Each structure stands twice: as C-alpha cells, then as structure tokens.
C-alpha cells in the first residue's frame, strides 16, 4: 500500500495534539463501523439467541439449535450446490470467453474488428430492464430443449435448467470490455519476439499474453462470482423450481414460507449461512481489491 500522509513531525504540531487527532480519527471510524458492520454482527448474535433472551443485547446462553433447524427445514445443501454450479460455471465461461475475445479484438487484425469493439461498448449501456423480459422468452423458446420443437414451441425450453443461468451470465459486455482494455495496455514487443521465434497466434496467446493478463482475469472472476452468487432476480425469473433454486432464492422462499412462525432467529440463521461463503472468499482476496480498482476503474 502506498502511503499518503507525511510523518506528522514534519508539520510540527505538538505531540499531544497529534495523539488527540489520531484518537478522534479512530473514534469516527469506530462509530462508522458500528453503523455499518454491527447489523451483520447483530444478525449472527440473533441467530444464536434463544427466544427467552431476545430482549437482552448479548445472549448469555447462545445456542446453535436454530442453525440445525434451518438445515432441516431448508434444502441448504441442494441450494448451495446450485449456487456453486451457477457461480463457478458462469465464472469459468465468462473469463475464458472474454479473455479470448479481448485478445482477438486487440492483438489480431481482421475486418470488422473495430465495429465489433464499438458494439461491445454500446451494449455496455443497455440496462437490465430492456433485457430481462425478452431474455426470458429466448430461454423459454430455446429450440430442442425442455420439450421444445425446432422452432422453440410447445415446451418450456431452458426454464428451470442451470444453463439458463450460466449462459446469459457468460454473455458479458463488461467482461469483454475489461479484458480488451487490459490487453490494450500490454506491450507488443513480446508478441513480436515470439513471432520471430516462429510461434503461432495461439501459442502467443497462451504462453505470452495469458500470464500477463492474470490480474484482469482475477478482477473479472471476482466481479462475476460476486454478481452470480448474490443474484436474485434472474434465478427468480428462470429457475425458481425447487430442484434448481439457488441459495438466494432458497433463503427468501424460506422466509415467506415460514412467515407465520415469526421466528426471527431462524431467518437470521438462514441468512447468515447464506452470507458465509462469500465472506470467507472475500477475506482471502482482500489484498488485490483496492489496487486493481485504482488501475482499472479510472480508465
């Protein structure tokens, strides 16, 4: 991390004011953290609080009972697997496809290339609401799937099929744009040296450029994973059947199905175990986040 502040001693305020300023800083941050992170902590604490102690702030007899109840009442394992397949599948596909496309749009010259690049940029501006309706229809009328004939009639197409989730997620103008921008920033000397040595285009892509664009692939991967893991709307529209429902859908339907029970600890337990996978993943990749935002986000 590059640092911003010059050591306080250079501007020569007295030591006592320096310490007081530092303290005020930490105090403000602490208040901020209370407001932002405390609700999540409160969610966990509620999930382990027996009903008798709900009125108090900290439970003295925490219980894991609600977690086990959730695992019994909610098909967590199946939902988790569906979410995982969706997230990992679309992740792999979008990174692979976008990287190939980014390379092709920048490192190879062919007719129509500039036009394609413009198309990608234009598609970045298309909002979700114009897409989701017709996309639903495209999925529903997918030929030769789900009982559809070759014209896509009389069946339900790819509805309630994981591919309905994975394939549209791999069609990402943002992914292509990201990789393209990154490729544009790479020097071409290595390419030329490889050509002189007799390397074919694929070889140049795989051995020379691919290792260099790993940071961009990592960002795309992270963005894609976060988006697909947390996605609610699209699975609601095309994959709400119980055998393909994702974790996010499962949690929400668990709440609406059990609403009469009114047991908040149960909902908080369900919510927490839905949050945990992404949380664990994020803690591991924290390091790369700010640096990559600084270089990529401001282009």
């Amino acid at each position, binding site marked *: *991390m*590059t*640092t911003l*502040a010059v050591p306080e001693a*250079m*501007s020569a305020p007295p030591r006592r004011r320096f310490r007081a300023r530092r303290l005020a800083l*930490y105090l*403000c*941050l602490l208040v901020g*953290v209370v407001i*932002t*992170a405390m609700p*999540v902590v*409160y969610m966990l604490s*509620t999930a382990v609080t027996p009903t008798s102690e709900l009125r108090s702030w900290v439970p003295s007899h925490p219980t894991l009972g609600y977690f086990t109840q959730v695992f019994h009442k909610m098909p967590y394992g199946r939902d988790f697997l569906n979410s995982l397949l969706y997230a990992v599948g679309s992740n792999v596909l979008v990174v692979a496809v*976008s990287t*190939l*496309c980014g390379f*092709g749009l920048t490192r*190879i*010259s*062919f007719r129509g290339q500039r036009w394609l690049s413009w198309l*990608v940029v234009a598609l970045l501006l*298309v*909002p*979700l*609401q114009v*897409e989701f*309706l*017709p*996309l639903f*229809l*495209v999925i529903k009328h997918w030929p030769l799937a789900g009982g559809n004939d070759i014209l896509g009639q009389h069946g339900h197409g790819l509805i309630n099929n994981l591919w309905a989730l994975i*394939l*549209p997620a791999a*069609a990402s103008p943002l*992914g*292509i744009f990201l990789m393209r921008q990154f490729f544009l920033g790479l020097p071409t000397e290595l390419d*030329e040296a490889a050509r002189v*040595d007799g390397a*074919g*285009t694929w070889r140049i892509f795989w051995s020379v450029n691919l290792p260099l664009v790993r940071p961009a692939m990592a960002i795309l991967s992270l963005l894609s994973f976060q988006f697909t893991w947390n*996605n609610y709307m699209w699975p*609601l*529209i095309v994959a709400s059947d119980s055998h393909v429902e994702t974790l*996010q*859908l499962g*949690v*929400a339907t668990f*709440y609406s199905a059990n609403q009469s029970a009114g047991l*908040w600890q149960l909902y*908080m337990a369900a*919510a927490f175990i839905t*949050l945990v996978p*992404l*949380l664990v993943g*994020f803690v591991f990749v924290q390091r790369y986040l*700010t*640096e990559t935002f600084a270089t990529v*986000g401001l282009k």
Partner: protein
Amino acid sequence: MNDRKSVAGGAVVAPSRRARSGRRLRSPHEAATGIAFVSPAILLLLIFFVVPIFFNLYISFTNYTPGTPAKFIGLRNYSTAARSSTFKHALAHTLIFAVATTIASAALGFTIACVLNQIRGRSFRFYRLAFYLPGLTSVSVSALLWLYLYDPQVGILNRLLVAVHLPPQQWLQDPHLALACIIAMAVWMSLGFSMLVYLGGLQNIPHEIVDAARVDGAGALTRAIRIIAPMLRPVTLFVSVVLFIQSMQVFSEVYIMTNGGPLDSTNTSVLEIYKTAFTDGEFGLAAAMSFVMFAMLVVLGLLGSLARRRSD
C-alpha cells in the same frame, strides 16, 4: 531451409512487409484466427443481448400474452404506459431512490475513504473489511436482516427509539417512510463499493499538495472539500454513474421486502415491468414500459453530459 521468419502454420512474411504494417499481420489465416478468438463471446452476445433487444422492440408493438398468438397493435402499449399513473409513480419512486442512494452513498464513501486513508497496516484492513461487509451481503440476506431491524414489534430500531422515549414507527408499513427505509438499506449496501473506489483514487493524489495545504493552515474539512474532492472528480463521476444506473434497476430489495407496497409507495419501474409481465401476463405493455424507461435513461444521460460540459 527453414526460414526463421515464417509464421508457424501460416504465410511466410517478408521482413519488409512486416516492418511496414506495424505490429499486426494481415493475412487470410490471421483473419480467420481473429474471428475464431472473438466468436464465442460475440455469439453469446448476439444470442443473449442483441437479439433480445430487437425482440423486445417487436413485442412492444404487439399484445403478446403467453399462450395466445401476438397481434400487432402499433403504439397502443406506449400510450397505455404513458397514461398509467401506476407506472408514472413507479418511475418517480425509482428516480428518487436512485438520486438519493447515489448522492448519499458517494458522499459517505468519500468521507470514509478520506478518513480511512490516514490509517495503515492491520487496522486499515480491518476497517476496510468492516465497511465493505454490507456490500458482500446479497439482496436476500440484506432484505431479511433489514426486515428484522425494521420490524415494528421486535426490531432493534423501534427498541432503540422506545429506549430514548421517541415514538416507535411502522417503517416498512408506513407509506411515507417505506421508500426512505429501502433507500437507507441500499446506501448501507453500496457505501463499501464507493469507499473502495475512492480509496483507490486517493492513492493517486500526490501528498505534497495536501501537505502544502496543511502547512498553510487549512483544516481537515477544508482540505477535503477544496482540494481532494476536485482532484477526485473523475472518480466521483465513475462512482455516481455506476451507482445511479445500478439504482435505477432496483428490483429485488423491493420485491422481497414490500412488493411495491404499502399503497404502491415503494413500487419501482423494474418491479412494475415485472408485475405487468409475469403477474398480469401483458408482455407487450411491459416491453413498451421497458423502452420508455430506456428512453428516460438516455435522456438523463444526455442531460448529464450536457451539464458536465457546461460546468467545465
């Protein structure tokens, strides 16, 4: 004899031609390779992006309902949408939501980033994670959590109010408060992103300028507003645009927490489009609504860039 300058599997390129055309080679083989590289992505884009847009346009001029064949009805859907007060209210709510969320989230993100930037090491990473934590929660998780916080009987917000002798509120069941409640939740979720981007931007500010200002006696607030913020204008633009576009598409929060109620006070445009299509079955009308929204976004975008050009 092996000509070392030949491209493996392709045409032999004379050195002079290569020097003239710069870094890229043009040959039939090359073009085919290029198309091979881009075709998976472009094919996916065509099927799942381009075709749907035109399909949607077509549907908006019909009265398509699943199960019955579509009949061309011209601009009737558009006039229905224009006359629908539900839709117009939904648009208004969406705009209010987007503007409020964007401004609040950007401002808070900027403030937190400025403060956090002066800390390093372990504390820095702890605080950064703590502030980004809400951004990691999905909409389902956040919705459940905030439904709990806002619950009139057992929610902590009402408990806090009662503890300081203020009247408890109905929050999500109060038509005057519900939208504000959802805005608060949306700001909570997005300020982590805003903070991260501003932190990145702050890295690029040369500290000599800031320190010169401090030596000249400028207080922390003045430094932040007069010096740092203007230098971060591109970042602010980026954050605002991303947040605004994202907020205009709000759906899941409202669907899970209030389903547009109470009394349609939290109805948003995407929710309205969704309900028109999947509850009322009127795909044609829904398609028209989506294009009305698209047009509005385009107009807003143009106004935005006009305003920016004038202020420069």
